[in-house]
């Protein structure tokens, strides 16, 4: 999957299997990634698990949310509830059946899980001082080195987009598909890394149904960034293929 870390690092990773994205005394988020095509190092997210760790606060009970790509997004936590804590400190809401949001008031944190085509996407916004206060359920007393959102992907898990992608579609066709905005896509124009990533995915998978899925996923991911971290977008668009890092 493509990863934007809390430090605004942009990476494409293989990270096959289960990996923690966030792991601190307040919340834990874990994703499971599976290969998209047999024999390819590329993977996509098929499961997201979120734990709201209630034991660190009187503001909520512990809650777990689980989403899997082979079923529609659950509208509740696994215990069937949508709220927790006094004055609903934790609230889960469903939007257009393809997006759920969990708002945790006592840590001013928003978590979004999307179903994008056949795969899942995740977004989180949390206060800077809590991002830095990492260290898992045991606070600073456990190993936090694997949180992908905090540390990024380990170097050995990063994909080189030029040498490790397949090539089923030429760059110009992929660019055309990624610039085309379907009516059901949530943003008009892809820019920055989201345009690059879309071109990478569509070149890799070809112009079939999955290309539409990946283009839609890039639009959704950019929509979340526009809402949660708009200043990170520089409105860069690749106008000449020679400038595109994936063209060689």
């Amino acid at each position, binding site marked *: 999957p493509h990863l934007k870390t809390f*430090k605004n690092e942009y990476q494409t990773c293989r990270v096959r299997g289960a990996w923690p994205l966030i792991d601190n005394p307040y919340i834990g988020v874990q994703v499971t990634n599976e290969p998209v095509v047999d024999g390819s190092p590329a993977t996509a997210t098929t499961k997201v698990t979120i734990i709201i760790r209630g034991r660190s606060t009187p503001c909520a009970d512990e809650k777990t949310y689980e989403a899997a790509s082979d079923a529609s997004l659950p509208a509740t936590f696994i215990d069937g509830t949508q709220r927790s804590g006094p004055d609903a400190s934790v609230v889960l809401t469903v939007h257009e059946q393809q997006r759920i949001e969990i708002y945790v008031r006592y840590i*001013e944190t928003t978590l979004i899980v999307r179903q994008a085509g056949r*795969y899942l996407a995740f977004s989180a916004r949390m206060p800077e001082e809590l991002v830095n206060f990492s260290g898992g359920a045991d606070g600073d007393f456990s190993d936090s080195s694997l949180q992908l959102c905090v540390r990024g992907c380990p170097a050995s898990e990063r994909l080189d987009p030029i040498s490790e992608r397949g090539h089923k579609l030429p760059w110009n066709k992929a660019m055309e598909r990624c610039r085309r905005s379907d009516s059901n896509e949530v943003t008009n124009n892809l820019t920055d890394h989201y345009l690059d990533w879309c071109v990478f995915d569509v070149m890799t998978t070809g112009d079939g149904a999955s290309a539409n899925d990946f283009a839609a996923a890039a639009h959704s991911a950019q929509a979340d960034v526009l809402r949660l971290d708009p200043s990170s977008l520089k409105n860069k668009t690749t106008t000449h293929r020679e400038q595109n890092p994936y063209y060689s």
Partner: protein
Amino acid sequence: CKVDKCSREYERLMDERDIPSPEPSTEFCQVARDYLSCLRGTARSCRGNLNYHSTMSTLGRLGSEFNCPRLLTNITSAGHVPLPSSSSAPPRTTNTPAPKRECTYQGRHRFKHCGLFGD
């Protein structure tokens, strides 16, 4: 490997705060957290040092035994409880009572974003 330097700093802080031995208190947990942080800073050069590994493991066990994460929950990385500030909680209807202050985030409203998607 600078494990001894970290240990000396730990002993100095324990003396300074008048903590005779490890105990289940916020003060000790803060000292232990600083000790861990110092040790992590020297992790690369201490990879083969048995003293480093046994110290890390003892500190992890004490942190767990004394429930340090819970004691330190409300302490930010700056070492103080987050200060009150205006909230950006979602809008409420006019007849909904204001949420309890203790369950509304009181820290600084500077945010970070992380996202993961696609193939």
